[in-house]
């Protein structure tokens, strides 16, 4: 297929898709890889930090443990504030070129990208997880303590599962933001979708057509991701029906009860 300046808009779009689809696909793949890995690692970081930052300092700690916990909390808070408070694009420059200059490590752009997105997401998720944990009713902690469960047992068996269920919408937010924000990694030459599009547009001098295609690809990715996470959200909620358990007194009972509306 041949296109020139006289070709129509649709001819150009068709030409671009036909010529560049392998590149677009690879770019989208890199974008997904970085954002998916970054979101998962960041979520893990966020859970660890959120759990540490909600450890109550009580009389069970001796003075060294108290001091240690306070120190860790200060370090974590500094991490959160720094990475939330500076643009990811700038962090990318500092870390990528900094690693090369100060430590003489030449990171591959993709690994650098995954690293940057992960610690960035971790900083946001830490606060989201902490919010999720402190929003759980105090009665849940008290009930668990009253049967002898320790803080750690309470956290991992009772509180965290509920908190994670509650913060899933925020996680889905973070994921979508990450898919879009990996575009700033083009500054360190990560060959993700935006970087590829820029090259394709530059070669043909067709910015509108190329970026319209790019736009569509981004949207398809984010929309798919939000749908998938919504599915998990519903899954985690558990069945809205439950079966009456047959017992000695009512052996024939096997009734399904629906009493909760789905929204």
């Amino acid at each position: 297929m041949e296109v020139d300046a006289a070709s129509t808009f649709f001819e150009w779009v068709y030409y671009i898709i036909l010529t560049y689809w392998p590149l677009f696909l690879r770019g989208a793949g890199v974008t997904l890889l970085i954002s998916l890995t970054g979101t998962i690692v960041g979520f893990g970081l966020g859970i660890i930090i959120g759990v540490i930052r909600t450890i109550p300092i009580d009389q069970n700690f001796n003075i060294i443990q108290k001091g240690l916990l306070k120190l860790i909390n200060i370090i974590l808070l500094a991490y959160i504030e720094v990475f939330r408070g500076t643009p990811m694009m700038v962090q990318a420059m500092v870390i990528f070129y900094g690693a090369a200059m100060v430590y003489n490590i030449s990171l591959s752009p993709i690994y650098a990208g995954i690293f940057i997105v992960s610690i960035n997401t971790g900083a946001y998720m830490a606060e989201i997880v902490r919010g999720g944990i402190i929003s759980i009713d105090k009665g849940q902690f008290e009930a668990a303590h009253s049967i002898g469960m320790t803080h750690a047992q309470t956290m991992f068996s009772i509180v965290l599962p509920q908190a994670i269920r509650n913060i899933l919408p925020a996680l889905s937010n973070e994921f979508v933001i990450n898919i879009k924000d990996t575009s700033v990694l083009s500054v360190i030459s990560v060959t993700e979708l935006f970087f590829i599009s820029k090259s394709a547009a530059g070669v043909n001098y067709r910015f509108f057509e190329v970026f319209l295609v790019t736009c569509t690809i981004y949207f398809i990715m984010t929309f798919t991701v939000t749908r998938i996470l919504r599915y998990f959200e519903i899954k985690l909620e558990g069945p809205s029906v439950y079966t009456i358990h047959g017992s000695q007194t009512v052996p024939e009972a096997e009734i399904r009860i629906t009493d909760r509306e789905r929204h």
Partner: protein
Amino acid sequence: MDKIIEVRHLKKVFGENEVLTDINFKVSKGEVVCIIGASGSGKSTLLRCLNLLELATSGEILFRGEDILTHDMSNSVYRAKMGMVFQQFNLFNNLTVLDNCMVGQIKVLKRKKEEARIKAMEYLEMVGMAQFINAKPNQISGGQKQRVAIARALSMEPEALLFDEPTSALDPEMVGEVLKVMKDLAKSGLTMVVVTHEMSFARDVANRVVFMDSGVIVEDDLPEVIFNNPTNERTRIFLKRILDDR
């Protein structure tokens, strides 16, 4: 008789506010003690101190002669022996009815899953909730939740069970089912300390009734004495107000 709990000179201060002043009382094995009194008289705080949900400011709490405030016994071990039922049920929302009754046995008592399940079923059967083991807490009614909460506490096979206004958050028609379970428990010889506004329960079931007012124990006597011949003026005024409202 075998003393299970003994409280000596217990004091609890919140900021400037002295909520409990020089509390002394004992609970023997198999006894049912009801604590009554107006809101804000310190009854719930006393109960929470007994389960270490609040840390007493000073004084001693002896559990079978061991001082639990000085950590002769770990908090976890002690709490497993001292069950608690809350006004707001506080069932674990992420777990089914059955898992609610199993999680403590598995995590704290280190029981095998199968053993925990059998125990849990035994007590759920006892409170009449065995059919609902697959339900989540938000799928059952308040009265049912409270019965599961009682089964959860019993599954730990505690030496004594504390009830913090167990029927106060319930719709009137559900109070009966919970009180019935509690009466059965009392008959079975379980040691119970019950903070309650249900005067008929205190009168009929309790072995002893403790009346509290502004952070002190005013009277501690047999239910017949408290309800028919209270020696203290404050008890008389409180009971008159409560019973006239009915």
